[in-house]
C-alpha cells in the first residue's frame, strides 16, 4: 500500500514545479515550445476527430455495415455517371467546425448504444428504424438541409437539364420555400415502415 504522504507530496511537487519560474530556459523558448506542442496537440485532436468522419470508421460498426450501407450502395450518391459521391459523413456530419463539434458530442451517445447493443440485430434495427430516421429528418429540417446544400444549390439548378417531374417539383420547392429533406427522404436509405402524415414533409 502506497504511503499517502508520498502521493500527496508528488502532486504538490508537480504543482510547485509548474508555478516556479524557469531557471534555465528563456520565455521565448518556452513560448515557442508551448506553441509547437499546442499545434501538435490540436492537429492530433483534429486528426482523430476526422478519422471518425470517414466511411471506413462508420462501417467499422456492423450495425451500419449490414443495414444502411447496402441500401446506400443502391443509390445515386454511391455510384453515378460522374463518380462524384457523398459518403456517410458528407450527409450526417456537419462541415463547419462548431456544428461538427456539437454533433460529435451528441453522437457520443451512440457509443453507449453500441455498448448495450440497442440495434445490434436486424430485428432490433428495423424496430428502431422509424425513430432513427425521424431523428435525422428533424435534424436536417432544423438546419435547412445544410449538409445537402454543401453540394447542391436549388438556386443554381439548371431547370432545362432536369426531367419534367424534377423540374416541376423543384419549381414548387422554390415557391413554397421548402427544404431538401422535405421531399428527399429515402434518397440514400430505405424509407421506414409506419410513416405517418406528419412525416410527409
Amino acid at each position, binding site marked *: 500500500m502506497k504511503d499517502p504522504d508520498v502521493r500527496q507530496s508528488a502532486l504538490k511537487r508537480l504543482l510547485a514545479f509548474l508555478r516556479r519560474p524557469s531557471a534555465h530556459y528563456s520565455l521565448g523558448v518556452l513560448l515557442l515550445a508551448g506553441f509547437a506542442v499546442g499545434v501538435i496537440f490540436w492537429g492530433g485532436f483534429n486528426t482523430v476527430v476526422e478519422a471518425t468522419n470517414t466511411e471506413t470508421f462508420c462501417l467499422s460498426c456492423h450495425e451500419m455495415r449490414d443495414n444502411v450501407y447496402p441500401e446506400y450502395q443502391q443509390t445515386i450518391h454511391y455510384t453515378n455517371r460522374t463518380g462524384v459521391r457523398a459518403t456517410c459523413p458528407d450527409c450526417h456530419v456537419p462541415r463547419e467546425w462548431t456544428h461538427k463539434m456539437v454533433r460529435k458530442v451528441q453522437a457520443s451517445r451512440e457509443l453507449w448504444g453500441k455498448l448495450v447493443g440497442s440495434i445490434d440485430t436486424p430485428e432490433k434495427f428495423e424496430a428502431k428504424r422509424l425513430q432513427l430516421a425521424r431523428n435525422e429528418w428533424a435534424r436536417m429540417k432544423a438546419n435547412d438541409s445544410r449538409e445537402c446544400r454543401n453540394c447542391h444549390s436549388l438556386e443554381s439548378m439548371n431547370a432545362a437539364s432536369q*426531367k*419534367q*417531374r424534377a423540374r*416541376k*417539383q423543384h419549381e*414548387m420547392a422554390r415557391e413554397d420555400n421548402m427544404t431538401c429533406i422535405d*421531399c428527399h427522404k429515402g434518397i440514400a436509405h430505405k*424509407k421506414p415502415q409506419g*410513416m*405517418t*402524415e406528419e*412525416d*410527409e*414533409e
Partner: protein
Amino acid sequence: MKSSPLYLAVAGALLTTPAIQAAPPADWSAVPATEITLFYPGVSAMEWITKGTEHGGARALRKGETCADCHSDEAADMGKKMASGQKLEPSPIANKAPFIESRVQAAHDGQNLYLRFSWQQPAASGAAPMDAKNPVKLAYMLEAGSQVELAEQGGCWASCHGDARSMPGAADSKTKYVKNGSLAGGVYYDLNQWRSGENKTYDGHIAEERVMEGGTALKGASGAQNGGTWSVVFTRAFAGGPGDVTLEPGKVYNFGFAIHDDHASGRYHHVSLGYQLGIDAEAGIIAKRQ
C-alpha cells in the same frame, strides 16, 4: 302549294340533311391528332396516389397540378416499371406490353362528337385470356364541371380505388366507383366502351358503382385492325339522358381513356393520364366542327 315541286324539293332537302350530316369525317387524315401514351398502371389506386409518404406527387395534386404536368414525358417509363413488377405490381404478367402509343382525333358536326382512336397492336403476352370473348376493348370517360374530385387533374383515375375488383384483396363484386358519387347530384363519369369480339358498344356511367348500360348518347362505334394498326371510331350524340354528359360547343370536358389489350379485364388495362377535351375550345384534345 302542298305538292308543288319546289315545296317538295325544299322539304326533302330539310328532312334528309341531318341524316347525311350524321357521319364521322370521311377523311380523318385532315383532323389533327393528339399523341397520347397509354401505360400499364399496376395497382396505383387513388389511395396510393394521394398518400404523400408513398407518392411525391400527392403534394403537387393538393396544389392543383395535374398528373400530366409531371408525368406526360415519362408515361412509357412508368409503364415499364409497373409491367415488369419493379414497382406497384405484386403479380406482373410476363411479357405484358408496358405501354401503347396511341393517337386521338376528335371532330363534331354540331350534333355528334366523333372520336377516333388508333394504335399499333402490341405483341401478345402469351398469358391466358381473362376475357376470352374480346381481344381488345376501348373505353373513354367524360366528366363535366369537375364535380368528381380530381377528375380535372387525373381524368378517369378518380374511379380507381384499392378495393375495386381485380385489385389485390378486393371483392369480385365491387366495381369502380367515384368518391361521393351521385348521378342525381351530377358527380359521375360518363362511360363509353367498345368491345372488339362482341363488336358492341356500351354506354353507362360510374357514380357509386359502375353501370354499363342505360346511357343513350352513344350512337355506335366501329373498330377494325388493318395490318397491325387498330382504328376505332365512336359516334356520340351531344346529349343523352341521365348518366350522359351533355356536350356543348365552347366547353371543355375532363377526359381519359383506356385499352384492354390482350384479352385483359379489370385493372390489367393500359390507361391514359387525365386530359381535357374541348368542343371548339382550347384543350389538349380539340373537337373542331367539320
